[in-house]
């Protein structure tokens, strides 16, 4: 069900919350997933790139962007998310869709550990093309806001680790979410289709 509640959960919650909250007054159903109508670039948070430059989220419009959030010391899923992002990159390269049209971002949820230097090291480790990849680290509040806007769940589990959902998001040049996949190692052709449909 991608980044959505399972139908069972959904109906359970509608049922629970329906009973809880709305009997006798008005009925409603919870929509599913984050808003696809709003632009993510309404967020005014300021981040730092792997080169230490300040990056305003609301200045990222104009290109299609592929976003994923994680953290550099992650041993489990993040390397796989990055691998998925690199598969997308490879497909874009093969189709001749350059960094002038689509950029890829890995955004840290760990403002304490992930300094721009850590991001730079990640760039080197994975051989990321700096023209294509914008790695970002921010502050706790900016991370929370962006994660919520992306419909992403996360929490700190130990001093070093986070549990988090694995979502790859495709943003239109105006900042609207046009596609999301939370599944690691899933078929990325839908994400690619969403990217290409913008051209």
């Amino acid at each position, binding site marked *: *069900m991608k*980044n959505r*509640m*399972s139908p*069972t*959960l*959904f109906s*359970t*919650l509608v049922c*629970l*919350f329906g*009973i*809880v*909250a*709305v*009997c*006798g*007054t*008005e009925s*409603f159903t*919870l*929509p599913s*997933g*984050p*808003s696809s*109508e*709003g*632009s*993510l670039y*309404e*967020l005014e948070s300021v981040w730092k790139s792997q080169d230490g430059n300040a990056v305003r989220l609301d200045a990222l419009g104009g290109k299609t962007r592929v976003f994923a959030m*994680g953290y550099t010391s*992650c041993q*489990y*899923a*993040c390397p796989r998310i990055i691998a998925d992002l690199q598969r997308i990159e490879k497909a874009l390269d093969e189709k001749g869709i350059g960094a002038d049209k689509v950029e890829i971002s890995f955004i840290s949820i760990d403002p304490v550990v992930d300094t721009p230097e850590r991001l730079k090291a990640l760039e080197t480790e994975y051989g990321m093309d700096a023209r294509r990849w914008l790695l970002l680290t921010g502050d706790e509040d900016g991370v*929370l*806001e962006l*994660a*919520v*806007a992306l*419909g*992403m*769940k*996360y*929490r700190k*589990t130990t001093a070093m*680790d*986070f*549990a*988090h*959902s*694995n*979502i790859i998001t495709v943003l239109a040049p105006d900042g609207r979410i046009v596609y999301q996949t*939370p*599944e*690691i190692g899933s078929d990325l052709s839908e994400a690619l289709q969403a990217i290409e449909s913008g051209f």
Partner: protein
Amino acid sequence: MTRTYPRTALLQAISRATASKKGFGIGSKVCVVVVNLCIQLTVADVPEEMVEIPAGAYTPMYIERAEERPVSGFLLDRRPVTNGQFLEFVRANPKWRRSAVKRLFADEAYLAHWGGDLDLGPNGDRIADSPVTHVSWFAARAYLKTVGKRLPSEDEWEYVARADETRADASKDPRFTARLLDWYGRPSPAILPSVADEAPNVYGVSGLHGVVWEWVRDFNNAMVTGESRGDSSLERGLYCAGGALGTTDPRNYAAFMRYAFRSSLQGAYAVPNLGFRGARSIERGPVP
């Protein structure tokens, strides 16, 4: 100014002293005077509409998080934010009006129970002092920012929500849980009661249960699917008809419902019966 004693502890000391029939000599009067002085000192930086919640620890309901978690002292609003207060906010902040709000920040149901941008509707007089609902997480945060507050964390909220009128932790008392479940199962009235009508808990906080559910800062901390560590079975217990089996205390089904509800939310959702209140961290003064 450095804080020396939590205010609630001092109040409890006073009530113990005054309730006690013996040992009431000059000494205890002096003691009460000193205690009162201390209260005045600490009251100075606690706004009237807030109370100080003393630091402590609590055990969240999930097995995965079953270890005790520390909660620092903080300030919490006595009551949820009302329609009237929120109206003042949107009056002063046009971009948060119903017709102007960005869809990223609030869905179509935002303030749907009002008559218009600056109009509480035909029942305006009656709902002005009721908790505001149909507000998104983003809107709640924006409101609180303007008054120098923030949303309480889930830990903070749940820590205070264990209290009843006389005990800081009533969560092990089946009667307490039964009361909450009774509310959860009752239809909500068309006109929500005024925030002034609810009995305060032992901290002086009212309306945590019984009127509306409330946003917390980190409502998005429970995984639904695709958790990165691959140990989502714990949370699967929460969703896949596992009922309350994954919880530290299956009796606390009321808390289970709150966690389940929260994890179904998105930041832009504006739903009936979901409101909010403010919190503030306590700034520690320099250590002398």
